[in-house]
């Protein structure tokens, strides 16, 4: 549905986007992830025809945005980083303006009413946009993108600056829209993509560093799994036992102690489920296992590793330190 190939964009000497290629299938919700200034907005602006690429091409449903801009733009609904709203218009006026601007052919009243229902702006229809709250403005921005029922929806950081309740609402809305549209969602908020997207493309310094299904991404980066186990027993012996259990790559005490148990951090080798062997080993040695939690890598870790591989070890250490001494860890985390 969307195809970007070897796209580059230079601002003077600076390469904002450097030879990136990816494609989005029909009906997919793609998360476009990257730190601020990574080139997300530039890519989306090229894709929507607002900017032109230095080289490479962007196609929507096979139509090149540069060669047939009007046809391609008709297939796109775009919510830029800052919603393009005219403060001196009412919501209804604005929607009608966008309807005409996009040359929409659907029955006007019904279509605008439906959109109003979906994004829940019907109750502010008569209010001036400048008087709306940020959440409503964002929704009017989304509503504008939906006019004409375009095949591809592109949202550039749609939840920025919203409160947690609004964020969840907007996310649910995007999920809902994803059922009938191809969606590209740019963000630098990790849980957001985890919650909403089928696939994640990560961009950093103008280059793509990962392009994976959301669920595969964790494994793609690091197959090891981490567990935090609470075990009753003498520390040194337990630790020795843990280290000698098959499939365990790394084990160490964590600082946390309850009255009778100690917490341990255990890392397995790649793609090995060590929970059962662990249980039996501990049972045989009669060290009761009273708690076992998965401490899986989350996107945050993955992200840090991908965008800055040198930091990988540092992050690793920090994690362990943080687990051992939560308070001290927080402080060192702040420093970095």
């Amino acid at each position, binding site marked *: 549905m969307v195809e970007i190939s070897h796209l580059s964009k230079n601002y003077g000497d600076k390469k904002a986007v450097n030879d990136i290629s990816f494609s989005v299938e029909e009906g997919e919700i793609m998360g476009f992830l990257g730190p601020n200034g990574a080139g997300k907005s530039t890519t989306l602006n090229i894709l929507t025809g*607002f*900017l032109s690429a230095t080289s490479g091409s962007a196609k929507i449903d096979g139509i090149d945005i540069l060669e047939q801009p*009007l046809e391609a*733009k008709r297939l796109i609904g775009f919510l830029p980083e800052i919603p*393009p709203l005219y403060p001196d218009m009412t919501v209804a006026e604005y929607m009608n*303006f966008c309807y005409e601007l996009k040359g929409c052919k659907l029955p006007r009243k019904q279509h605008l009413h439906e959109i109003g229902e979906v994004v829940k702006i019907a109750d502010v229809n008569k209010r001036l946009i400048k008087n709306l709250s940020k959440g409503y403005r964002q929704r009017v921005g989304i509503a504008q993108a939906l006019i004409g029922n375009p095949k591809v929806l592109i949202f550039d950081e749609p939840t920025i600056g919203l409160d947690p309740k609004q964020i969840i609402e907007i996310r649910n809305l995007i999920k809902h829209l994803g059922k009938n549209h191809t969606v590209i969602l740019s963000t630098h908020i990790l849980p957001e993509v985890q919650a909403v997207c089928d696939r994640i493309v990560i961009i950093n310094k103008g280059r793509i560093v990962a392009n994976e299904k959301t669920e595969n991404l964790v494994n793609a980066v690091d197959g090891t799994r981490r567990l935090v186990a609470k075990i009753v027993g003498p520390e040194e012996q337990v630790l020795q036992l843990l280290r000698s259990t098959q499939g365990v790559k790394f084990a160490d005490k964590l600082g946390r102690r309850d009255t009778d148990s100690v917490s341990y951090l255990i890392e397995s080798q790649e793609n090995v489920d060590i929970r059962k062997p662990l249980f039996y080993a501990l049972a045989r040695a009669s060290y009761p296992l009273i708690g076992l939690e998965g401490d899986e890598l989350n996107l945050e870790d993955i992200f840090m590793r991908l965008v800055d591989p040198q930091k990988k070890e540092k992050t690793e250490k920090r994690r362990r330190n943080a687990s051992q001494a939560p308070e001290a860890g927080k402080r060192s985390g702040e420093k970095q």
Partner: protein
Amino acid sequence: MTAIYKRELRSYFITPIGYIFAGMFLAVSGLLFSWLVLSADNSGAYSYAKISNYFVYLLFVFSVLIPLLTMKLLSEEKKQKTEQLLLTSPVSLTGVVIAKYLAALTIFAATLLINSLNYILLYIYGNPNAAVILSNILGLFLIGASFIAIGLFLSSVTENQLIAAVSSIAVIVALLLISLLADTIEKEFFRVILKWFSVIDRYAPFTLGYFDIPAIIYFVSFTAVFLFLTVRVYEKRRWS
């Protein structure tokens, strides 16, 4: 394109700018008109000259008022980030620029038309030359149209309305004053060039009731060049 045109037209009357423009234009031109008519004497030829003066004075009124119409046309879109909506909609860049231009031109033409009601009074008290009046109105329209194109262009290069307005006033006044400057220049070569650019010199035939085709072509192409440059400003920004 019609959507942009309609929105722009409407915004002139949501904000006070449309009213200020029309009000100031009609008030100042009415004042000038009555002053010149009252001070005219009965010798026919002389009063024609007076009427011609009136039209030249109006040009200076334009220099201040037309930038009012054009200053926010494109600069505000940039500031509000709404240009992203316009430029990612299925409307061509030329379409956007022309729609904006026509909106300003419509307000200007409507005000000019209302202002023309003044001349009807002349028929009650005398027998003015209709050709002089009509050609003057046409001349004013063409000059206004080119000034709007200048204003639109300058509005596209900044996101600050005030800068757009002040620079437009400066450019328009400079264009009006070129002919005064040209008269004082000794070198034939520079004088001819400056005269060629001088708006007032181009306008002179209209004040005499003469529909000067080259001048019409001059103003139309003047407008076209600035509209083209405005489109280029956007093209360039897209590619850089």
